[in-house]
């Protein structure tokens, strides 16, 4: 595209910097020299995708290879989409501005169910046939991974291949296989032959190699492998030792202000606190820590090679890292004078401390966020969030004393066994926190942000059998909180329960929902997670038109032995462990965490041949 036309295109849309591709640390290889071309597709806009650590890791992992290149592609915003359709510009990868349909692979990361229509839209904009069965020898392989890959069934007809679990090793096995098939065999046997061979790689799932049969009442009757190469169950891949990985120390520095705009050093993977609603806590086990020396070394290198002034020590629960105090202190010591600050996302109330608070606030204070999730001890015990009110108040007091006056607290509405009393508990907790502030006799006013989202039952968790709370219930409870939290010092945010309802349909959905995704997309559904784009009525009309009952997916109580649409996909957990946890939940019985010494029997270590890997003694409770 000539420079003048490029300017015309970019000046006709908002935030043209989303579409450029020449950021610092972006990798530009010669397409003529490289046989394996991978378009890494994040199905949301640039600002969201450029905050995603997994994408940075895989971009680096693929580009490390001399025989492969990885380039990025994001979902064009609606204004750019309109221009592209008008001028017949096919979706292009940022680094080379080449159409992604010319690549060998287009790989999507499935982070959130409500981005599925963006995935379809991107394929359409790229000129790639939506259905796997309709793709020909010149079309790329459309593959997917990420957390929702543990139940990708609503996308099954659109995906050629799915990767379960961590990608750093399996990607090389897949690309080695592809390179040899392409270069040495001239793609002999066609697409199906490649997929047959790929099915033999651990962690790889080929949806077209399975047929799903249903009972008359709609439940799954069987998931049947159709070819000998397709295993009955596919187990996720897991990296045993994170220290051996070549972690990216030259992440791309975005042109725009993105959601998370800082060095991200991954402290550990997995979380075994055992919160029963949490999908991530279940599918990323076991916990494997990076050594503190490695964390520091990676951080230093990344700061030097990016010029960022902030570091995020990242994980599912960073204050649980066994060396968090020492590492935070060391980073602060070395870099505070250079104006580099630390941020810690995802803090647990019961492992936060004043000492940690001080390290984090040395250069500039980021906000503090905690997630008690439930307002009463009883409900916290149900969900196994082992945090007591005393913990919460003590932590909040420590934070206030250390100088914070703005706190954000996350809760969920609609958890199993929830009553109005539990919702009232949220308001009571908020008031108790304000009393803590008052006792400190500060002159200023605190700012307490209470944010509630609606619980969505997820696959592979102890709550995968449970119905979601009804829309009426969710709306009613949010309404109550709105009244109870009326206070100048409190800001109450709530998430749209209608969006959560649709999410609940797809999170435990099966293949029969694929036409609904397609139809909703045809009718204009995209960027559903953006409140000004989401159209609830459209979804309901689509379900009605296709004679699908969303309540079947979102509101049904499953039986103990029901076959789930994701039963052939294995996160390594024992199903009886999940059921047992569900039973304990209903009795409000907490389960202590395995890092404290006692195995809870989730079976992941034995099933996958990996171990819990700590670099110190776990200090949690």
């Amino acid at each position: 595209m000539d420079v003048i036309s490029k300017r015309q295109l970019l000046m006709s849309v908002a935030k043209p910097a989303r579409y450029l591709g020449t950021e610092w640390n972006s990798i530009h290889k010669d397409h003529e020299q490289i046989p394996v071309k991978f378009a890494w597709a994040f199905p949301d806009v640039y600002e969201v995708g450029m905050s995603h650590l997994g994408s940075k890791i895989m971009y680096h992992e693929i580009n490390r290879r001399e025989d492969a290149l990885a380039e990025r592609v994001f979902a064009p915003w609606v204004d750019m989409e309109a221009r592209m359709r008008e001028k017949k510009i096919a979706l292009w990868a940022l680094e080379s501005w080449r159409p992604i349909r010319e690549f060998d692979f287009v790989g999507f990361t499935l982070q959130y169910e409500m981005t599925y229509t963006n995935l379809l839209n991107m394929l359409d904009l790229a000129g790639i046939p939506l259905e796997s069965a309709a793709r020909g020898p010149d079309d790329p392989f459309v593959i997917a991974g990420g957390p929702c890959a543990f139940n990708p069934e609503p996308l099954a007809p659109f995906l050629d291949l799915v990767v379960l679990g961590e990608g750093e090793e399996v990607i090389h096995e897949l690309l080695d296989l592809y390179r040899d098939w392409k270069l040495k065999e001239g793609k002999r046997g066609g697409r199906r032959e490649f997929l047959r061979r790929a099915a033999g790689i651990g962690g790889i799932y080929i949806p077209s190699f399975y047929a799903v049969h249903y009972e008359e009442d709609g439940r799954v009757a069987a998931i049947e492998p159709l070819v000998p190469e397709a295993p009955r169950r596919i187990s996720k891949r897991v990296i045993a030792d994170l220290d051996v990985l070549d972690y990216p120390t030259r992440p791309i520095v975005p042109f725009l202000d993105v959601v998370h705009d800082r060095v991200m050093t991954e402290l550990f993977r997995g979380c075994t606190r055992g919160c029963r609603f949490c999908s991530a806590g279940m599918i990323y086990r076991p916990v494997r820590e990076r050594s503190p020396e490695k964390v520091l070394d990676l951080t230093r290198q990344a700061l030097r090679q990016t010029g960022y002034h902030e570091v995020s020590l990242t994980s599912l629960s960073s204050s649980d890292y066994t060396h968090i105090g020492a590492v935070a202190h060391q980073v602060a010591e070395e870099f505070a004078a250079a104006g580099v600050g630390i941020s810690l996302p995802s803090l647990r109330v019961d492992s936060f401390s004043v000492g940690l608070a001080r390290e984090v606030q040395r250069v500039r204070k980021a906000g503090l966020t905690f997630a008690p999730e439930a307002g009463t001890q009883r409900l916290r015990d149900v969900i196994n969030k082992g945090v007591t009110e005393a913990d919460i108040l003590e932590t909040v007091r420590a934070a206030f004393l250390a100088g914070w006056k703005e706190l954000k607290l996350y809760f969920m509405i609609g958890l199993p066994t929830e009553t109005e009393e539990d919702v009232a508990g949220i308001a009571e907790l908020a008031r108790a926190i304000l009393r803590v502030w008052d006792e400190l006799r500060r002159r200023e006013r605190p700012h307490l942000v209470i944010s509630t989202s609606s619980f969505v039952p997820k696959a592979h968790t102890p709550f995968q059998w449970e119905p979601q709370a009804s829309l009426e219930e969710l709306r009613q409870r949010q309404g109550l909180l709105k009244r109870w939290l009326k206070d100048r010092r409190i800001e109450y945010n709530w998430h749209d329960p209608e969006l959560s309802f649709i999410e609940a349909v797809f999170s435990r959905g099966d293949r029969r929902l694929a036409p609904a995704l397609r139809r909703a997309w045809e009718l204009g559904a995209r960027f559903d997670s953006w409140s000004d784009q989401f159209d609830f009525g459209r979804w309901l009309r689509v379900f009605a038109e296709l004679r699908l009952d969303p309540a079947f997916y979102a509101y049904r109580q499953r039986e103990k032995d029901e076959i789930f649409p994701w039963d052939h996909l294995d996160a390594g957990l024992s199903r009886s462990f999940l059921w047992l946890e569900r039973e304990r939940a209903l009795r409000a019985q907490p389960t202590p965490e395995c890092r404290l010494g006692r195995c809870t029997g989730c079976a992941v270590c034995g099933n996958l041949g990996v171990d819990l890997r700590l670099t110190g003694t776990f200090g949690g409770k």
Partner: protein
Amino acid sequence: MVENSVLLKADRQAPFESGNKEASYPAASLYRIRARFLKTDDAIYLSHLDLARLMQRALARAGLPVAFTQGFNPHPRLVFAAALAVGTESRAEYADFFLHHPVEAVEFQSRLNETLTAGVQILEARSVPLSAPALTGLTRAADYLVLLSAEVRAAELAAFLEQEEVLLAREGKATNIRPLILAAEVVRGGLAAAVAAGDWKGGEASPPGDVEEGREVFLRLRTGSQGNLRPEDFFAAFNSFAGKHLEVLWIRRRELWAEKKGQLASLWD
């Protein structure tokens, strides 16, 4: 974020020169470097804030001893002469950098250029006394070369300029922008060819009065806190006046001007 006259704290160290803890500089020893830089290629599409962020990170990568502002959100201290709108290319952007340790201007330029990308490059750098007036307040005018989608006649431009009042709607109010227009000429500068060739240097304007009709226009417009007009707005007003639908295809800012005793002067003085 980028305009801040708070004096830094003395113990800020050069980034990533690890272990250099014993260095401490007296509060008065700040060093100021003024640079003229290029904003071309993809950098054209970065907003002013994006550009400031880009510079801050490049400075950190280059290990240059930039001073930091104090306060709630300390950031590297740099000051720009004038914000550039998204979509405008420029070979005359100016910024002042404040360092807490002396660095030769030439070295500053080469170290920074090594780590700048996407069309941002330092073209010239000089040490400037701390006592020199703040860069932000200095800018008075800017020169542009604009490429249009169709021809415009010199006579039409002249007629447009003859008006005492040229009204443009801004934030709901009609403002007279005529005093903000210092010059507007049709020129023959080879801008179209230069842009097509990726040549940011090309596009010299021909002498005034030479060209009767053409797609390239030279503009000298008021710029800065005392009055600011962008080329896009100039042509919006012109289109209104002449009943035309000229589209701006390219804008190249060629120079920024200060003012001394009623005359335009270089920002270097």
